[in-house]
C-alpha cells in the first residue's frame, strides 16, 4: 500500500495546535444559559423533598431540571439526575441561569431533605454478615440466563463470619456468582512442579480525560443540536436520544474533537440530557460545563479487584493450571465487564492447560464504572506478571523465555469456549524484544547497586481485544474528483478517524490529498459504525472503508465499460482516472465519472442501495444520493475469530533503598498489532498507554473516609495522574508488522494493551528491585516500597479498598 501505514499530517492537526479546534466547551451562542448541578453530599440517600422556590425566584434563574424530566429506563439504568443518589457527587438536579456564577448561587439556595441510607464502599465489607447494601435491593449484580434470555439482576449476598475468620491474610472466598472453567484443574495442579498463590488488590481508578464531559445544546427549528464530548459519534446519537427522551430525528450530535475518553465516553455521557433538556425547556442555548472536580465523580472509573490467584508450573515453565477468584468493585450501576475480561485475558496470555475462574461483582456507593483501556485485562495482567517473574526465578528460567513458553501463538485459544483467535505473532514479538532490549545484557543489571540505588527490570506481557467487524463504509466521489469518506467514528485524539480513511486512497489509487474525511456530526450523513472503543475502530473501520472503496472501484470499472466499451475488468482505477489497463491516460477522470454516475443513477449514484447495510447507512446514503458516485458496502470480509493485539513492555527502574523513591530510566514496548497503520500514532499509543499504566502502578487511587463515605482525590494534584517528569527519558518501541491474515488491510486495534504492559512491567520491575519482595496492593506508593525495604508492616491493609 502506498498511503496506508505511513506517517502523515492528519486533517485535524492544524486546528488542534493553533487552538481553532472547537471542543464542546468552546461553543457559544446568543442568549446562552449556563447549567450547574446540585450534587449529593452523601454516598447513599433518598431525596424526600426539593424546595427550589428561593432559587427559582432569583432574577436570571431560568429553569430547573430534575429526575422527573428524564425518561425512566429501568431500575439499573443510570440517569443524568436521580432522587436516590448512589454515590457522593451524584447529580440530583440542574439549574440553568444567565451566568454560571448565578447558577451556582441558585444551587446553594435550594433546600433538599435527604433521608440518609446505609452505604457500602468496600466490596469485602459489604459481603460481611454485618455489611451494608449499596442499593436498597442488594449488594451484588449478576448476569442471569433465564428462559426469556439474559438479564442483569441485583441480589443480596452475605458470607458467614467463618469465611472471613478462616481466610486470615488471604482473600475470603465465600459463595461466588460467576464461574467458568476448562480442563482438569486438579490434575493440572497435581502435575505442577511449582505452585504459587497470592492474594492481591487493584485499586479503582478514575479515567481523567483531559477534556471533562461538557455539553452544549441549542434548539434550532425544533431540533436539538448537541455539542458533546464523546468517543463515538454515529453510536452516540441513539443513546443521547434515549437518555434524553428526544426522538432521534429531532437530535443532531456534534463531536468533531474529543479530549480523550479512555472508555469513559464510549457512546457519549449520561449527563448529555442536562444541556439538551434545559435547552428544550428554555428554548435557549445551554452550556453545561463540567469542572475537573465534577469530572472525578460523574466521570467514570475502572473497577477495583480483590483477587486470589494460584498458578501451577512445570519445570520447563509451562503453566499446568490457573485458578483465580475475583471480587469486583462494581460501583453502583450496570454490571462491569472487567470481571469476565480479566480471566479471559489471562486465559489467552498464559495458555494454561486448565483454568478456573470464580467471582462476584459487588455494588458500592462509589462513582460509576465503565470500561477503561483494557478493562479487566490491565488489572489481571499487572497482578500475574510479577508472579511469572517469581516463578521464573524459582525454576531458574529466563523471564523472557518463560513468557515464550506460555505465549499464545498463531490460532491460540481464548476463554472457556476455547475459541481460536484470528492471529498472534507473539514469538516474533518476543524475538524482536530480545534483540531491541539487548535482553541478555539488560537482565544482568537486575539488582545492581549504585550507592543507595538498586536497579530493577520488569516485563509486562499484555494482550487485549483489537477489533470487531461487520460495519458499513460510505463514500462519495464527487464531480470535483475528490473522494469524500463519511465516517461515524469519533476523534478522540488517536487519529484513527482519518487513519482508517487512508485505505480509500490506496484502493482507488489516489493521493491522500484527494481524500476528504467527513466526521463528527450526525447531520452529515454518517454510516453505521463501530463504537469508538475497545480498540475496535482500526480493524472495523479499515475493513468497512475498504469495502466501500472497493464497491466504488467496481462501480467505476462498470461505469467505464458501459460508457467507453470493453469489459469492466479491462479497466483499472489509479491516478485520479478510471482507465484501460496499461493506459493510465485513457478512460476518464473521476470527476467526469462522478457526473456520469449521477446521470446514470441507480446504484451508481446511490438511488439503489445494497440490502445488507444498516438502516442508519441507508438513511445517510439516501441523503447523499445523486451527489456523485457512491461507494457503500457492508464489511463482509472473512473473519478469523476473536481479534487480539499484544504488547510486551519492559521497564528499567532505580529504587532508592533509603527513601523508597523510584525513578524510571527506560521503557520499551514491542507490539503485534498486525499491519502498522500510522507509525507515529502507534508510538503515541504504545508510550501513552504505557505512561497511563505507570500511573496505575504507582500512585493513582481513590481515598475515601470510610466512616463518611466521602472521597478526597477530586483534583489532579490529589488524584495524581503521571506528569511528564515521571516519564522515563528513554522510551523506545517496535512492531512486528505481520498483517492479520483475515482482514484485507491486516491492521488490528492497539489502544488497549499498552496500558497493561506499562503497568505490569513497572510493578514487576519494583518487585525485581526489591529482590522479589511482594507488594500485594496497587498502586505501589513510596511508602509501600519503603515499608517493604524496612520489613515494616504496610500502613494500609491489602484488602481494604480505597485506602
Amino acid at each position, binding site marked *: 500500500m502506498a498511503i496506508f501505514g505511513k506517517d502523515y499530517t492528519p486533517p485535524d492537526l492544524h486546528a488542534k495546535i493553533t487552538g481553532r479546534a472547537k471542543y464542546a466547551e468552546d461553543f457559544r451562542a446568543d442568549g446562552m444559559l449556563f447549567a450547574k448541578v446540585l450534587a449529593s453530599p452523601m454516598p447513599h440517600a433518598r431525596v424526600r423533598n426539593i424546595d427550589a422556590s428561593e432559587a427559582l425566584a432569583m432574577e436570571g434563574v431560568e429553569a430547573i431540571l430534575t429526575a422527573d424530566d428524564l425518561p425512566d429506563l429501568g431500575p439499573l439504568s443510570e440517569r443524568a439526575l436521580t432522587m436516590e443518589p448512589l454515590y457522593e457527587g451524584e447529580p440530583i438536579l440542574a439549574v440553568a441561569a444567565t451566568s454560571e456564577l448565578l447558577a451556582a448561587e441558585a*444551587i446553594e439556595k435550594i433546600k433538599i431533605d435527604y433521608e440518609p441510607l446505609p452505604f457500602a464502599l468496600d466490596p469485602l465489607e459489604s459481603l460481611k454478615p454485618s455489611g451494608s447494601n449499596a442499593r436498597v435491593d442488594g449488594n451484588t449484580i449478576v448476569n442471569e440466563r433465564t428462559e426469556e434470555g439474559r438479564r442483569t439482576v441485583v441480589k443480596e449476598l452475605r458470607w458467614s463470619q467463618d469465611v472471613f475468620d478462616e481466610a486470615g491474610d488471604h482473600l475470603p472466598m465465600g459463595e461466588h456468582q460467576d464461574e467458568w472453567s476448562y480442563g482438569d484443574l486438579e490434575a493440572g495442579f497435581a502435575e505442577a512442579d511449582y505452585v504459587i498463590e497470592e492474594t492481591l488488590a487493584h485499586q479503582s481508578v478514575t479515567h481523567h480525560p483531559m477534556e471533562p464531559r461538557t455539553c452544549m445544546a441549542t434548539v434550532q427549528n425544533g431540533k436539538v443540536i448537541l455539542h458533546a464530548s464523546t468517543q463515538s459519534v454515529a453510536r452516540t446519537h441513539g443513546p443521547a436520544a434515549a437518555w434524553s427522551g428526544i426522538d432521534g430525528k429531532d437530535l443532531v450530535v456534534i463531536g468533531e474533537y474529543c479530549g480523550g475518553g479512555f472508555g469513559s465516553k464510549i457512546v457519549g455521557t449520561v449527563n448529555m440530557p442536562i444541556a439538551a433538556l434545559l435547552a428544550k425547556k428554555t428554548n435557549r442555548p445551554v452550556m453545561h460545563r463540567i469542572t475537573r472536580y465534577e469530572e472525578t465523580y460523574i466521570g467514570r472509573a475502572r473497577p477495583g479487584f480483590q483477587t486470589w490467584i494460584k498458578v501451577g508450573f512445570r519445570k520447563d515453565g509451562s503453566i499446568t493450571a490457573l485458578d483465580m477468584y475475583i471480587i469486583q468493585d462494581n460501583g453502583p450501576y450496570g454490571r462491569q465487564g472487567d470481571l469476565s475480561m480479566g480471566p479471559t485475558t489471562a486465559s489467552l496470555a498464559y495458555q494454561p492447560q486448565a483454568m478456573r475462574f470464580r467471582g462476584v461483582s459487588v455494588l458500592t456507593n462509589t462513582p460509576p464504572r465503565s470500561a477503561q483501556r483494557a478493562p479487566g485485562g490491565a488489572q489481571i495482567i499487572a497482578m500475574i506478571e510479577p508472579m511469572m517473574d517469581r516463578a521464573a526465578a524459582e525454576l531458574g528460567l529466563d523471564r523472557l523465555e518463560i513468557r515464550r513458553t506460555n505465549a499464545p501463538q498463531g490460532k491460540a485459544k481464548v476463554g472457556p469456549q476455547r475459541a481460536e483467535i484470528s492471529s498472534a505473532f507473539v514469538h516474533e514479538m518476543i524475538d524482536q524484544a530480545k534483540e531491541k532490549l539487548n535482553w541478555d545484557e539488560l537482565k544482568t543489571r537486575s539488582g545492581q547497586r549504585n550507592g543507595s540505588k538498586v536497579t530493577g527490570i520488569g516485563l509486562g506481557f499484555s494482550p487485549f481485544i483489537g477489533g470487531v467487524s461487520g460495519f458499513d463504509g460510505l463514500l462519495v466521489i464527487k464531480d470535483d474528483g475528490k473522494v469524500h469518506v463519511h465516517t461515524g467514528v469519533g476523534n478522540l485524539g488517536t487519529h484513527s478517524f482519518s487513519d482508517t480513511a487512508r485505505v480509500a486512497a490506496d484502493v482507488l489509487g489516489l493521493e491522500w490529498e484527494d481524500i476528504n474525511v467527513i466526521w463528527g456530526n450526525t447531520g452529515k450523513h454518517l454510516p453505521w459504525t463501530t463504537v469508538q472503543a475497545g480498540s475496535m475502530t482500526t480493524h472495523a473501520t479499515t475493513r468497512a472503508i475498504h469495502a466501500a472503496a472497493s464497491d466504488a472501484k467496481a462501480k467505476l470499472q462498470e461505469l467505464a465499460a458501459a460508457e467507453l466499451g470493453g469489459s469492466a475488468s479491462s479497466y483499472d482505477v489509479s491516478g485520479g482516472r478510471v482507465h484501460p489497463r496499461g493506459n493510465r491516460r485513457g478512460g476518464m477522470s473521476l470527476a467526469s465519472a462522478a457526473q456520469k454516475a449521477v446521470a446514470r443513477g441507480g446504484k451508481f449514484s446511490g438511488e439503489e442501495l445494497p440490502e445488507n447495510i444498516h438502516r442508519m447507512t441507508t438513511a445517510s446514503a439516501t441523503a447523499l444520493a445523486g451527489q456523485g458516485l457512491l461507494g457503500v458496502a457492508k464489511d463482509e470480509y472473512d473473519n478469523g475469530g476473536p481479534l487480539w493485539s499484544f504488547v510486551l513492555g519492559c521497564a528499567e527502574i532505580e529504587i532508592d533503598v533509603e527513601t523508597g523513591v523510584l525513578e524510571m530510566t527506560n521503557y520499551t514496548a514491542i507490539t503485534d498489532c498486525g499491519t502498522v497503520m500510522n507509525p507515529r500514532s502507534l508510538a503515541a499509543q504504545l508510550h501513552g498507554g504505557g505512561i497511563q499504566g505507570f500511573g496505575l502502578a504507582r500512585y493513582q487511587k481513590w481515598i475515601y473516609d470510610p466512616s463518611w463515605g466521602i472521597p478526597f482525590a477530586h483534583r489532579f494534584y490529589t488524584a495524581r495522574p503521571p506528569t511528564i517528569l515521571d516519564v522515563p527519558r528513554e522510551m523506545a518501541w517496535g512492531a512486528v508488522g505481520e498483517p492479520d491474515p483475515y482482514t484485507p488491510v491486516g491492521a488490528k486495534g492497539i489502544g488497549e494493551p499498552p496500558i497493561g504492559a506499562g503497568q505490569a512491567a513497572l510493578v514487576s520491575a519494583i518487585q525485581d528491585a526489591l529482590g522479589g519482595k511482594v507488594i500485594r496492593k496497587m498502586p505501589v506508593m513510596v511508602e509501600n516500597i519503603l515499608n517493604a525495604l524496612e520489613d515494616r508492616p504496610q500502613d494500609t491493609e491489602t484488602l481494604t479498598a480505597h485506602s
Partner: protein
Amino acid sequence: MPVINDMIPEFDLFQPADVDGALELLAKHDDAWVLAGGLDTFDWFKDRAKRPDVVVDLGAIDQLRGIREQGDGYEIGALTPLSDIENHEAIKAKFPMLAQAAQAVATPQVRNQGTLGGNIVQDTRCWYYRGGWPCYRAGGNICYADTPTSMNREHCIFGASRCVAVSPSDSAPALVALDAMMVVRSRSGEREVPAADFFIGPSTDITRMTVLNGRELLVAIRIPSTFAGAHQYFEKVRDRNAWDFPLVNVAAAFKRNGATIEDARVAVGAVAPYPMRLEAVEAQLRGKNADEATGKSAGELAIKGAKPLRHNGYKLPLMRNLVMRAVRDAQSAQA
C-alpha cells in the same frame, strides 16, 4: 460543607499600589483575604470553603518583589516568584538549599506564579480541612483526620494538638535551617521574627499556621550570611516528580572544620504542623565527624518521640533516613 465546588463566589477586589495601602485595607476590613500568587487562595475560593467579602491583591506592589543583597546577607521580597529564587545565581551559590527547595515546589508553571511569601504562609493541605469539613482548625470541635478510621497518610507524626495537619511548605524548612528572619509589617511598624518562631502549631493557635494576624503582612525574608556558602542539603520525597506536596522534606546546613561539624541546622517539613527544627540533633552533631554513623544516630534521634497515626508509620523511617542522608552528604561533599 460546600454544596457546590469549582465556582468562585463574588468578592470585592482591592489592588493597592503599596504596602501602606494594603495595611490600611487590612485594618479596615476584618475578614480581608490577602492574595499573592493565588495558588493556595483559589483552591479555597473554588471550593467555597472560604468566602471573604474583601480580597486584597498584593500583585501591584512592586516593592514586595526582588532579591537584594542586604548587609552581609540577602533580602527576598515576599512576592518574589519561586522561579526567580530557583534561578538566582547568588542564591544558588550561597544558599543552594533554598534554590533547591524553591525548585522542588509543584511545577514550573506554579513556580512562575507562586511566591516565596505564599509558599511560606500557605495553609495546610489536610483534605478534611480543605474540603470544608467543620474541624477544630475550621472552628469546629473534632479532628476528622485523627479517628480510628481516618485517612491520614500525609498527616503529622510530631506536634499534634487536637489537629494533626502538617505544614506543606518546601521553602519553610530551608528558611528555618538558614536562620532566616521574617519581616512582618503592620500599621504600627515592622518587626523581624526568626523563621523558627514564625511558624506556630495548633497548641499555640489552631486556626492559623504562622504568627501573622489578619492585620499584618509578611513583606520580606532576610537571610543572614551565617551559612552562606556553607555545606547545605535539601531533599524532598513526594509521590510524583512534579505537582506534589512533600511526604517528608529535609533541609540542613553545616559549618565544618575539616571533617568535624562545628555547627549545624537541621529542619524537617511535613512531619509536624510547622517546619520542625531538630535542635537536639543539631546539638548531637556538633563536634562529630560527618559520616554515615553520625548520620544514622542523628536519624534515630530525629524520630525519637514521634507518634505515627494509623496510616503514616512510613514517615518514621523516611524522616530518619532523610536526616541520615543530610549528614552523610556533608561527608561526601568534603572529598
